[in-house]
């Protein structure tokens, strides 16, 4: 790889330190605002589901919003919800450790989160086999299936983001032996921390939104 860099050096355009600094700032800003914008997008996606839920609930067409108050298997629900919350809070509490400078504790926390999320993902898919109603038997049943599919996506994103970030940290530690990725001003380290910050922020959003959806579908 470094050979390729050397060969490429000949055709590179020069860049000044200021330009490097500028690009770095822009890059960090992009991660920051990209993370926020992604939450905005995801909010609209989930809001469509929430809207559908309450719309069908209030129209109650054919008195088939939720006959006999059928409920999805709550044991599965609690498990998935707890695991998701665990994954999210691992990211949030982990970041506090990282800020204190404890990389390996952060890494351990994130790995726990990854495992929790993967397990939640498995449970969310497995739950389909235990649903006690037909998908089309009521408005609630339909929105529940829609919710399950969206939740698979959410948990997948959680797992993917957690895993790629922690994998990056291992790689960075290996490649930049001796560099403290939690403090270093090295661009790669700064980029890494910006990513961690955006990720943690998103996990907070996931914790909130999955609480809301869990309550809507399992408790209400």
């Amino acid at each position, binding site marked *: 790889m470094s050979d390729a860099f050397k060969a490429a050096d000949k055709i590179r355009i020069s860049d000044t330190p200021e330009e490097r600094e500028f690009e770095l700032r822009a890059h960090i800003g992009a991660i920051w605002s*990209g993370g926020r914008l992604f939450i905005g997008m995801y909010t609209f996606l989930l809001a469509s589901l929430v809207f559908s839920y309450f719309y069908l609930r209030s129209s109650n067409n054919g008195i*088939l919003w939720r006959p006999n108050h059928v409920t999805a298997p709550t044991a599965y629900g609690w498990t998935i919800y707890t695991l998701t919350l665990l994954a999210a809070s691992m990211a949030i509490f982990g970041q506090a450790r990282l800020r204190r400078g404890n990389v390996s504790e952060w890494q351990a926390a994130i790995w726990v989160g990854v495992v929790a999320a993967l397990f939640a993902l498995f449970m969310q898919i497995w739950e389909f086999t235990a649903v006690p109603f037909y998908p089309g038997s009521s408005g609630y049943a339909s929105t529940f299936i*829609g919710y399950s599919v969206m939740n698979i996506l959410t948990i997948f994103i959680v797992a993917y983001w957690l895993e790629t970030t922690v994998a990056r940290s291992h790689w960075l530690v290996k490649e930049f032996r001796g560099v403290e990725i939690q403090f270093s001003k090295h661009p790669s380290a700064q*980029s890494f921390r910006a990513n961690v910050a955006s990720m943690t922020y998103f996990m907070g959003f996931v914790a909130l939104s999955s609480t809301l959806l869990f309550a809507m579908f399992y408790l209400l």
Partner: protein
Amino acid sequence: MTTSVEAGVEAPKPPAFIDIKPRRGQNGWLSQHVGTAALGGFLGYILGHWLGNFIGSSYPYIANSGQNSLAVLLALLFMVVGWLLGIGALNHPIAKILGREAKGEVEYTGWTRYFRYNLDHKVVGIQYVVGVLIFFFTGGLLAMAIRTELLNPTVHVFSADTYIKIVSEHGTIMMMMASSVVVGPLGNYFVPLMIGSRRMAFPRIEAFSLWTFIAGYFVIFSALAYGGFPTGWTGYAPLQTQAGPGMVSYLFGFAVISVGMMTAGFNLAVTIINYRAPGMTWSRVPVFVWSIIATAALLTLASPVLTAAGLFGLLDKTAQTSFYVTEHGGSSYLWQNLFWFFGHPEVYIMALPGFGIVGEIIPVFTRKPLFAYRIAAAGMIGVALLSFFVWQHHLFQSGIDPDMRPLFMLTTELISIPTGFIFLVGMGTLYRAKIRYEVPMLFCMAVYFNFLIGGISGVFLSDVPVNVTVHGGFFVLSHFHYTIMGGLIFAFFGGLYFWLPKMTGRTMNKKLGLWHFWTMFGFFNLTFFPMFIIGLLGQPRRVFSYARNLQTLNEFSSIAAFFLGASFLIFVANLMWSQFIAPEKAPANPWDSLGLEWQTATPIPHYNFERIPVIMTDPYHYSEVGAPALADFGNGPPVHASSAVAAAIEPEQ
């Protein structure tokens, strides 16, 4: 090498993400390109189809129906994934699982780079141009078929079934492919150049959006193989539930395209926010960039609603849920609400870039500053915001929330205030100017002419009593063609004539350009103006036969439409002639524009600007004695102001 690295570390690697060293890419046939993408798509399709049939075979209900929607869905899903794998869009996301950092961007050379997953926004821009033109011309051919059928009320060229498929494909291709994607070509190509950036914020996401759109095109077209869909581009629900597996292509196509729209908008918005060159303050950003950021906001926030709506529809068709089935506790109004909550912002996704293009071109040919720049920016943002609050004006007669109609009438009419700003800006800039009527300028004048008719007819539609007369008829049809085709498509072609010399280094032939403009403008109005009258006289949309007394008007419109179609042949001829057959080298700045994008060499170097420019003023100081210089292109810039953001993330430092 000035990167600060702790002492004691040997041989630090240059950080990849700010690495501006272009690496020569592999040009060989064995690497990834459209060929491998097509192969991946094909294999994915087969695999998905097999899997769907395998699952379906254990459900007698599916197996006996002869219509396995699940197999269609899985086939298309796997096809899209295979396509993306084949083109290389997923290489990096997969490598990330191992913690790999992004490799530096690769500079491919030669013509084959246009057939690859390329991360250079200029290459992606060109790919988008070609894509949009193909989408547009396929939709246009279908339009010719529609007008052929409508030549006569009783003699039919197509069966009723075929006709409705054609109309539906035409509408869907035009709305979802040709028009929504119009931010793609010019937005992706010129936004970084206009804000003084060397790159996009997320070049991979940018390229991803392009290849997703192309996959979406195939998905939408695959409907024809499954018997088409009978619902028009609006896909209203009980008909959607009733339709065959072609509907799956429609629903899944919308989901795919919505992902493309989100990613395209996401990258553009983040780039504009973060990569503006030093000194490029919000009051100096070109109006085109304003229009793109407004569009990007709509793309990112409205498209997820379409994704959800499509997902629910797919579940209805494959998992037998009942989201849109009123009899089973769902609601057909749910689709209408979700669809139009996306759909109205969508129509502004198709209007705003046109406004931006026009605002960018007019000052160049009037040699005057853009009149009331702030009002222009405010107008775009105002339109974007208001567009989220008007969706039920499509449902005035539907029986849904009738008590809300005065409110939606008000919000809809309010949106004409910021839209009017765009006219103020244009008219003010024309005032007492010495105008050069080059081809792009003519297109801009035509946009004002057409969009005026489109906009005013929109006010008629928003008035609930008048809406009773005109809803669901050819009046609406004419209205949206005047806004979308008369506005956006005219602006797009104007933009192509204007910017192609920069994009390809070759000027378009002016004589052919004039022929193209006048035929397109004339026949556009001759085609669509009669449709207002046809609509008022009572012809509903999407019908294969109509009242006898409307034949003359319909014939007139059809014949004009054929000439309108022919006018695009002139464009194609011009494109071929001036770009390939007898190319004429364009000067770096043929229109003598002050825009930052024109201050680069042609062809534009891989990293756009040798030095990141420092912007001193806005790009509209035409005809001004002692105007300040646009930018300082020589010296390194001071650190960008966004360090405040970094400080927020890095409290310890």
